[in-house]
């Protein structure tokens, strides 16, 4: 079984400068009663995008993602902290995002995103400040070389966990890899009385 590979991406940014944007903001808990993966984009950042009466706030920069030209989310530090809900990357992908850039991205979200083809990228503070202050610029991301090249500032390196990177580049599903380890898993169970 394979997943869609991720190699390069060139797109414009949408900037949410707030720090500590938690997964309850990305997808509020009331949308988690679904038993599906699809369709979560409708609830993505719901309380940021819609007013009390349920009307779309056109002022929200998030709406630009729908045009298809702004697939990179630049967010403040400690992005996607909080709950382990994989609904967060599902919702961002469904809305149209393909990558997230911050100075600091929460561990579980990073792990969840990599398994779904949403690329989380951590950059240094200086680059981060530049990106935060220049919404809408075009950025090229190359996962093979692990270089992110924003317009108007020097390219910077980023690091993606090696195995997850390989899976994304080759379109390999980690579950297939795990299932192929079954002999070792059984041996572990025998030796350790599991």
């Amino acid at each position: 079984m394979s997943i869609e590979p991720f190699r390069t991406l060139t797109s414009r940014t949408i900037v949410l400068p707030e720090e500590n944007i938690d997964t309850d903001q990305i997808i509020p808990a009331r949308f988690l009663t679904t038993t599906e993966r699809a369709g979560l984009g409708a609830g993505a950042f719901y309380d940021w995008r819609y007013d009390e009466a349920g009307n779309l706030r056109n002022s929200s920069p998030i709406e630009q993602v729908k045009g298809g030209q702004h697939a990179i989310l630049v967010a403040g530090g400690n992005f996607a902290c909080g709950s382990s809900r994989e609904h967060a990357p599902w919702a961002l992908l469904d809305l149209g995002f393909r990558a997230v850039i911050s100075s600091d991205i929460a561990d579980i979200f990073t792990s969840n995103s990599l398994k779904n083809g949403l690329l989380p990228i951590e950059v240094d503070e200086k680059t981060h400040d530049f990106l935060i202050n220049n919404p809408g610029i075009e950025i090229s991301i190359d996962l093979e070389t692990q270089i992110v090249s924003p317009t108007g500032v020097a390219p910077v390196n980023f690091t993606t966990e090696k195995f997850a990177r390989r899976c994304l580049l080759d379109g390999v599903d980690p579950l297939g890899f795990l299932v192929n380890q079954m002999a070792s898993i059984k041996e572990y169970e025998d030796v350790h009385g599991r």
Partner: protein
Amino acid sequence: MKDQPQTLLDKLWERHIAVPETDENPAVLYIDLHLIHEVTSPQAFAVLAERGLKVRRPDRTIGTLDHSTPTLPADENGELPYGTPAAKQQVEQLIENCGVHGIELFGLGDPRRGIVHVIGPELGLTQPGKTIVCGDSHTSTHGAFGALAFGIGTTEVGHVLATQCVLQRKPKAMRVTFDGELQPGVGAKDMALAMIAEVGADGGQGYAIEFAGPAVRALSMEARMTLCNMSIEAGARSGMIAPDETTFAWLEGADRAPKGAEWDAAVADWRTLVSEEGATFHKEVDIDASAIKPMVTYGVSPDAAAPVDALTPPAANASDAKAAEYMQIEPGAAIEDVDVDRVFIGSCTNSRLSDLREAAEILRGRQVKDGVIALIVPGSEAVRKAAEAEGLHDIFRSAGAEWREPGCSMCIGMNGDQGAPGDLVVSTSNRNFMGRQGKGVRTVLASPATAAASAVAGKIADPRDFMEGVSS
């Protein structure tokens, strides 16, 4: 290598390596106990079905219903008042999935049902030395027993269902040492909030935290669970405490704990689960427990926490200013005296018997302030039964609080238990994120004592003012 003193994390990790980590690949880490609930599992079962895979070790998998379940009883027709049809469907889906795959489920009406992080320890399923995962970030709770326990996403839930393993890189080790002794009226929740305020909401990112020091040793098991529960609010996927006599005393006789000779052998083994003298931690934090006061949050991130008798700090940046605007608490304002609309006592952080006793001590013979709605939700059926056996429910009801059925309830608000827009809720849960307890709801995190005191005062209150012989 063997001569290098080991941390507790090293030992737990080493015991569960099915395939070692390399530069290219993460470790294949064996999971002893997989806890599942209705919210983060349906899509994982769907993947299994798509791939024609079975649940490999249903005997190491336990299901419970907690997030979407109502906390009000069934009506006269036996119908539970679900918040939405989707919530009901999600519950039914887990019942079906567990049935199909032969997974033990503590379902509706089962006396063992409850919040996943309350029932695991209660039943003795949670034990020192185990690896424990759940599609829930507060799985760190189980680390209180000297287990390696962490939250996973739904894809990983599928991995564990199919293989009983996860692919993981070893986290770095961080130690938080609480020296000294807690003051009266101060508890584990205050320690947790003080720690998060100190290190920041991302201070534990990439680490597994070990809590140590005399003030941690002095904590009951329930208090240790509260502390480990909040590790994720500092960004750490795991929190852990080396097991000791307190741990063994809690587990001895528990339903699923080892018995007889097996118990003796297990305890002998568990005693080795300590960080050795001279073991290296990548990050160390020391906190003077005697200086901790009752803590509350004033912002929309758990690290925005301060002593209840303090003034909120000035806004350092635009995020702080936005938080202050949302909370309607001015920077520089006194936290005490902020008006309260609701109080929630419950959640996997603070819904155990000792938490309820702590709240009851303050509510006994007092009244919840007129206009304040107080909801008290036990963490499990067993907690409810024990609390009712000692009459705590009568104390709560006499005080004017609502005594509900077990579940996650207002911590996450998925079941319809929510505040109204603009409400200020003093809550014993773990997250003060915007809208977490309902759209526009302002959450103030606090201990059960502080929450109970605030319910009586109708404003954020110092619990020590309600305790005999304790001065604030």
